[in-house]
């Protein structure tokens, strides 16, 4: 005990790596630890799993976007040989949703369907083929209702024609909110320049390669459910399963095999999760349901399209005076993450710039289109697209460079925003300057021949969130480390690796503090029963939050090991450091090192097992009002991108030649992984800018639910990327690291749009920037060839 206290004092000194940054494991570009399994095809994703006596489920989906279900007759399906069971909405009287307060999603539609592709019945059969055949034998009688496809019609059609998608939501308004910080109207009236513009950001989807899949294994003797699911928020799904199935949480276990991409789309429970669980409990056999690609598109839960009106005031020098933002957000059929996304767009409209006053009015409306939810860069990408174009417009009108106006307004470390949001650390200016220098932006801008252009944009994203939806005030994340001679280090944590490489980064952070090799740390995660609690993978929170929990767990272990090492070494506990499996004196290099295994054995022999835990919950702030708490984060990452484009004057095709990126993500834990996150973000952002949009027929049918008709960025589209990690270290972050997976998607679309303006003078404000739009513009100025 005395030793512990002594060490607690000396702990201050042992954080010396925070200023010396003598990291040995953090900062290593190690290949991901699950990589060998992935490249050899051995790794099993959910749909690769098979259990004895397993059978299959398939969903019948609505061909109509808005219709009353008059009757469902599944008697013919039940008679088909090999069909085991059928479920309809009557079997699921309780709704679910990621936000418990506004949960309105039906597992299977009960009285009416509100979007094309909404599940109305489910069949369980011996094979997928039989299940598919049985779906055709289910007779559903629909009564068609008027359909709302365009979000701008939602309120009018409710008020004038009485078309309500949810009967309890007048005006088809899912949620609305206002924020006002300062007298924006008065400030704008006195500003030297006010730029006003309307924008449209399109509905685009995650398009992860692995379709949703669920495999439920219900033990009818113990009444316990084990669900394997493609889920990036297993603990939320745990709560929702318990609610919908009316089971105690203790009787439900969710295991998430590695995910084949998520990007937010697997941040909700899926119909497959509930349906397979219910079937399995009724027939006592394991049941699997894997979506077809068209079903993945129908599920969507991705980017909300937004109709945005912005007014931004500037001084004649180019300083922002006030930002006024009106947002009509199209939500689709159900709530999903809607409220959160709405307020995120407010919180994220002006950062990474200083806005002395800000006003927001937003509405999320219901439409008969596929439900929108969380998508990489949630709530940030839409206003970023608008504002970054407006920064260029303002610069042009003021006669200064787009780079200069951004540098002039860029947020710096220690900034408190007008909505009380606090930015502890920012190297945004450095990213602006680096990306501009590396691309020679200032020398190229406005000087390239007609058809070639260059554009710049800033961006940022949060690293976690202080206010979350989980219905309890427990710690947001927990990590437990078990150290023993036989197994070295086993790290239990709740981080859900969705493909971004969390498992590898978690091992690196544990290895750093414990002084072992990352490759030797076994990570046990993604299981609600055997790994620890964590809110899930969203809001770029994993590295930061789980990182702190891991660091604290490992420091607690060191607190037990350091005194033992010190005793062997004959020095004071406060002198001890550990790396490469050696305890050493941080002051005296001559002092003999002690082997890590020897100290562990010593400790366990005399004290017993060595297991320690750490936890993390982001600090909250006082004085936040008007919903401004949504979007509050312990820290933020920043990024700048410069896009260079060539516009084909014959075809209108925009060819992105190069993206020069500079990122402030603090200390990279694994630089190779960071590079992958940046490249992947740019790829997705490019699709958002030029290629991707979910399109609907007038009757609400999704017109392009396949990779054939919904084009994503392929190998021929991907530009050259020069990515630079700027020198940065966030002292508030564990090991100095911030987000790197959602910030870099923000600047790509506006940088490309700004580059196209530089190339041909086309100030397009609607995504995506298709060939058709470019050609029409070229024709209008008589420049198409």
């Amino acid at each position: 005990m005395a030793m512990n206290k002594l060490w607690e004092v000396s702990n201050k000194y042992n954080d010396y790596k925070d200023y010396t940054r003598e990291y040995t494991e953090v900062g290593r570009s190690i290949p991901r630890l699950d990589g060998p399994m992935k490249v050899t095809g051995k790794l099993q994703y959910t749909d690769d799993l098979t259990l004895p006596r397993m059978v299959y489920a398939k969903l019948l989906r609505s061909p109509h976007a808005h219709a009353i279900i008059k009757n469902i007759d599944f008697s013919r399906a039940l008679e088909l040989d090999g069909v085991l069971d059928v479920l309809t909405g009557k079997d699921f009287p309780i709704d679910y949703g990621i936000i418990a307060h506004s949960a309105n999603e039906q597992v299977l539609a009960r009285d009416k369907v509100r979007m094309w592709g909404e599940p109305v019945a489910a069949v369980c059969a011996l094979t997928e083929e039989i299940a598919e055949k049985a779906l055709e034998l289910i007779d559903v009688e629909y009564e068609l209702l008027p359909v709302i496809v365009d979000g701008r019609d939602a309120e009018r059609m409710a008020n004038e024609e009485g078309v309500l998608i949810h009967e309890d939501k007048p005006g088809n308004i899912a949620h609305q909110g206002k924020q006002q910080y300062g007298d924006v109207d008065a400030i704008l009236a006195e500003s030297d320049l006010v730029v006003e513009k309307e924008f449209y950001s399109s509905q685009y989807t995650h398009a992860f390669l692995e379709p949703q899949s669920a495999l439920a294994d219900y033990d009818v003797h113990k009444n316990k459910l084990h669900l394997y699911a493609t889920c990036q928020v297993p603990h939320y799904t745990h709560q929702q399963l318990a609610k919908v199935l009316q089971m105690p949480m203790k009787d439900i276990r969710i295991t998430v095999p590695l995910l084949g991409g998520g990007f937010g789309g697997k941040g909700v429970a899926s119909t497959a999760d509930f349906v397979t669980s219910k079937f399995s409990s009724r027939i006592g056999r394991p049941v699997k349901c894997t979506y077809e690609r068209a079903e993945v598109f129908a599920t969507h839960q991705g980017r909300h399209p937004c109709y945005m009106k912005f007014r931004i005031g500037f001084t004649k020098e180019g300083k922002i005076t006030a930002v006024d933002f009106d947002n009509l957000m199209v939500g689709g059929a159900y709530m999903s993450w809607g409220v959160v996304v709405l307020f995120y767009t407010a919180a994220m409209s002006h950062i990474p710039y200083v806005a002395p006053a800000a006003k927001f009015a937003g509405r999320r409306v219901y439409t008969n289109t596929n439900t929108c939810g969380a998508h990489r860069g949630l709530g940030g990408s839409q206003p970023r697209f608008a504002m970054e174009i407006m920064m260029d417009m303002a610069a042009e009108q003021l006669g200064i460079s787009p780079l200069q106006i951004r540098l002039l307004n860029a947020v710096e470390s220690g900034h408190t925003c007008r909505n009380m949001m606090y930015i502890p650390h920012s190297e945004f200016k450095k990213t602006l300057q680096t990306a501009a220098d590396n691309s020679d932006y200032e020398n190229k801008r406005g000087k390239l021949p007609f058809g070639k252009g260059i554009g710049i944009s800033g961006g940022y994203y949060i690293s976690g969130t202080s206010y979350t939806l989980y219905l309890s005030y427990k710690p947001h994340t927990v990590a437990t480390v078990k150290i023993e001679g036989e197994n070295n280090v086993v790290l239990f944590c709740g981080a859900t690796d969705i493909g971004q490489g969390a498992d590898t980064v978690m091992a690196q952070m544990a290895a750093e503090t414990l002084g072992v090799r990352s490759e030797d740390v076994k990570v046990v995660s993604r299981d609600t029963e055997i790994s620890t609690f964590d809110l899930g993978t969203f809001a770029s929170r994993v590295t930061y939050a789980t990182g702190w929990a891991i660091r604290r767990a490992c420091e607690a272990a060191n607190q037990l090991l350091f005194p033992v090492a010190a005793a062997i070494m004959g020095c004071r506990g406060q002198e001890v450091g550990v790396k490469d499996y050696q305890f050493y004196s941080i002051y005296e290099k001559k002092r003999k090192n002690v082997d890590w295994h020897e100290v562990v054995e010593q400790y366990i022999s005399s004290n017993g097992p060595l297991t320690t835990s750490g936890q993390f919950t982001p600090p909250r702030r006082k004085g936040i009002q008007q919903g401004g708490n949504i979007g509050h984060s312990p820290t933020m990452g920043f990024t700048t991108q410069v896009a260079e484009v060539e516009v084909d004057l014959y075809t209108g095709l925009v060819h992105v030649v190069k993206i020069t990126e500079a990122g402030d993500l603090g200390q990279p834990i694994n630089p190779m992984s960071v590079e992958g996150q940046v490249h992947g973000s740019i790829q997705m952002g490019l699709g958002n800018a030029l290629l991707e949009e979910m399109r609907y027929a007038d009757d609400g049918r999704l017109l392009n639910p396949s990779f054939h008709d919904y084009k994503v960025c392929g190998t021929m589209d991907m530009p050259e990327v020069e990515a630079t990690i700027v020198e940065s270290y966030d002292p508030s972050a564990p090991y100095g690291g911030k987000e790197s997976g959602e910030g870099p998607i923000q600047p790509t679309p506006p940088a490309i749009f700004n580059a196209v303006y530089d190339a041909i003078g086309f100030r397009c404000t609607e995504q995506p920037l298709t060939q058709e739009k470019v050609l029409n513009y070229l024709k209008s100025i008589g420049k198409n060839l």
Partner: protein
Amino acid sequence: MKKQLITLNINGEDMDLRIAPTDLLVDVLRKEAGLTGTKKGCGQGDCGACTVIIDGKAVLSCLTLAIACQGKKITTVEGIADHKTGEMNPIQKAFLNHGAVQCGFCTPGMIMSSYNLLTRNPQPTRTEIRRALSGNLCRCTGYLLIFEAVEACAAEGGVL
């Protein structure tokens, strides 16, 4: 539909498999042969995750009838490692070491297309690599580190 027994040569081994004439190769590989390394991303021939090599050609197994593969040599991602030791093929090592793998779901298909390219063209240019992989979608990596992996593998002696 009635099942019948056929023999397919997969990764150098003759396997007797119970299939229906309508069964697609991807489903037979995954469900009957137990080779789940080949992934099904779209089932419509758009994403390339199910790419396998049949008689030296990269083929989409989700558009190929299994019954039509009798008498042909099928190679899947499980079949390119060293048969005796299990050691990874150089293209697999290159993907791993160059950060060309993220979620890993497109990886088997990407690797098979890359492997096939390098057997046909041991020193491909960047453009040739882009073309050869243009039927394979990846949503995580942005492709650039995949190109680097293929180039590195070619520079270090190729796949054989």
